């Protein structure tokens, strides 16, 4: 039994994390190895031009500050997904009409942010002593204290906001894939796999926290042991749901480098977003540039000299 627990509690996480780190580095290295031959930002606002025309440095950056701002908006607020608002005149009243894509923006944003919060919360398992900001953070996240009905077991303490939000957001993202025929048509099995896997991780985590209590001290002992490379599995076991949770996480992070989840590091390398529109200000060099055969003026004039002469066009060589 201990051997099995050791495998699921220690070996598997080590393997998964190894695949995760090596995989990501390999994939990013592969992208980075391919050069960016041309500077091709998608410009979404006014360019920097004559001084009296106001340039939009966030949508059409002309310097590094602008690029950082643009990337920050993209990464933190999903700017592009928010572009889809339309103004429509309805009975003379100008009002903003929000569409399905606003829901997509909201769903995606809520999902990603609550995931980040949950990850940060989990770092308390790997840190001893737990930094005070994490505790503060946890209190803030749990601010929505569910007034527990008296018939509920007292071990049902705090329902973290992020847990509720991530469940709702994931359900929305899944339903959208299943129910909208357009999205269903473009979806691959891998797309469902990823959502279901994360949903599994979240559900098992919530179940473990609120319904099938596990030994939190044991979890922390295991986590600290693994991270300091002195792994030991608590002998009295932690609880089945912990191992289910951990297994799903291992599956997710081991799958990460092979999947579309690579959009996380990928967005930082996207040449249509991370470059400034300074093409005419400073020259961009293409590393694999090579000379090509061009049709020169001399060849052209040679071909048409006589007729040009007749027409009175000035010539380079008279004969």
């Amino acid at each position, binding site marked *: 039994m201990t051997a099995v627990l050791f495998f699921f509690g220690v070996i598997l996480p080590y393997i998964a994390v190894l695949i995760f780190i090596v995989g990501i580095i390999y994939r990013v290295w592969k992208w980075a190895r391919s050069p960016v031959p041309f500077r091709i930002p998608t410009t979404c606002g006014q360019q920097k031009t004559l001084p009296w025309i106001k340039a939009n440095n966030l949508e059409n950056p002309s310097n590094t500050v602008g690029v950082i701002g643009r990337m920050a908006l993209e990464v933190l607020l999903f700017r592009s997904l928010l572009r889809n608002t339309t*103004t429509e005149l309805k009975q003379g009243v100008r009002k903003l009409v929000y569409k399905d894509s606003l829901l997509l923006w909201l769903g995606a944003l809520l999902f990603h942010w609550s995931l980040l919060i949950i990850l940060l919360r989990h770092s308390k398992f790997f840190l001893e002593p737990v930094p005070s900001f994490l505790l503060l953070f946890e209190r803030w996240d749990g601010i929505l204290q569910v007034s527990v009905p008296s018939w509920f077991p007292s071990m049902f303490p705090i329902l973290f906001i992020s847990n509720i939000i991530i469940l709702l957001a994931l359900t929305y993202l899944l339903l959208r894939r299943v129910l909208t025929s357009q999205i269903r048509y*473009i979806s691959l099995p891998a797309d469902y796999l990823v959502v279901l896997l994360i949903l599994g991780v979240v559900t098992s985590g919530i179940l473990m926290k609120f319904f099938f209590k596990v030994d939190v001290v044991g979890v922390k002992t295991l986590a600290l042991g693994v991270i300091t490379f002195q792994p030991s599995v608590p002998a009295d076991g932690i609880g089945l749901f912990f191992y289910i949770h951990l297994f799903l996480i291992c599956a997710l992070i081991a799958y990460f480098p092979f999947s579309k989840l690579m959009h996380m590091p990928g967005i930082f390398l996207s040449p249509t977003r991370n470059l400034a529109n300074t093409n005419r200000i400073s020259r961009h060099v293409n590393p694999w540039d090579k000379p090509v055969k061009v049709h020169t003026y001399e060849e052209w004039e040679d071909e048409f000299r006589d007729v040009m002469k007749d027409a009175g*066009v*000035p010539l380079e060589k008279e004969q």
Partner: protein
Amino acid sequence: MSDEVAAPEELLEIDYRPPKKGWMEPTVEFKKGTYCYGAPLKHQEYLGLPNPRQWQPPDEDWQLPENWKDIILEGMDELLNKYRSFRLFMDICVRCGACADKCHFFIGSGDPKNMPVLRAELIRSVYRKHFTLPGKLFGKMGGARELTEDVLKEWFYYFYQCTECRRCSVYCPYGIDTCEITMMGRELLNLVGCNIGWIVEPASNCFRTGNHLGVPPHAFKDTLDFAVDEIEELTGIKVEASVNRKGAELLFITPSADYFASPHWYTLMGYMHSADMAKKLNAKMYAEAKRLGVKWILGGECGHMWRVVNQYMDTLNGPADYLEEPVSPITGTKFENSKSTKMVHICEFTADLMYNNKLRLDPSLNDHWRLTFHDSCNTARGMGLIEEPRYIINNVCNNFYEMPENTIKERTFCCGSGAGIGSDENLEMRLRGGLPRANAVKHVQEKHGVNLLTCICAIDRATLPTLLQYWVPGVEVSGLHELVGNALVMKGQKDRTTDMRGTPFEVEES
């Protein structure tokens, strides 16, 4: 369907829905009017394109070279190693669907494979099969498919149904740019000799004569003289147009569709189906500037040329250190944003003139027009030239009405004919792709009585008239500087009774 005429009741029973099939099954039917012709053999050979042959898309047998699959896969490997955009965009799409309904071809045709995400998946599926582990292991379940001749035909069909307008990339959370993918797809097709005439022929002509029709230089000089005479007739002023003149201050480059042009006529065909080709044709612009010893270059109203000038030219053929940093000879303004490329957009140039009150303008001379402005995809999304043309418009006319916000500026709809597919045989496809643009024009026509669509792109000017005649009869198309020409009051001009088109002004205005 049977040949007999079905009774209405029977018609009701027919299910028009296509069979439910996943997109992985390639299905392409080349219906007349929805594809471009293959390139003539002669031009393929002139440009030295690979695997030249006489060929048409609907042919059952495409006469592909024996090892075509290896050629494509090797080509793909090379492109993946040359372009980070290509490799990255193959990997990071999450299929969120934000781009799905942003493509004018999807909106106009309803063909699901025109959703940008699927257009890219057509090539991504092959990439997965041959270049990724999950694709190799799980095949179809891993979103991978084998490269077959049908897949290749599908590529041809759909990559020549993309105008590389980049609207989808505005909405994509990772900035995935279908233009990049289409360019790669076309380049791969080109490797096995699948090209379209409307691109190859002009490219070949440009290579030889410098303009897409293959007009030789002496004939060009004649047209120019003709234009000068016309201006004299209209305005009473003899403008000087010099061709091939050395030591001139500026080199003016304009799309060859404008036969109303100035010194030397060297056009860049911005058909980006091949970086090498772009470089070959583009090289002429700088080479000419150097030979003629001009100080800098002024670029005319052309969308594709400007995408290339702004994002490619300096990289391809720069640095142009034999030119000077552009300074307007009239206002003394330094165009700092083009100090490396040394090429200024005519809208920037004119806006500067107007800002400094160097032009005498009478906007009432354009009062017969109620106009709206079409942002060209390339200047809007590849450059950010948005306010300059609007500033000019507001200076030269009194009745300017914008189309709805989500159809202009960076969200502008494509004319549906760019990137080499504006050929007449492809008219129906173009009408489909142009529907979203025309629809917005129709809106301002109904609401404000708009009768003129102004734009700053040669392809727009060539193809939008057809589009509007079908969708919005009664709206004409003009270039921006035609309006400037109308409103310009020159010293010593005679009383103008007509505009640049020779149309008489309305009585109360003249």
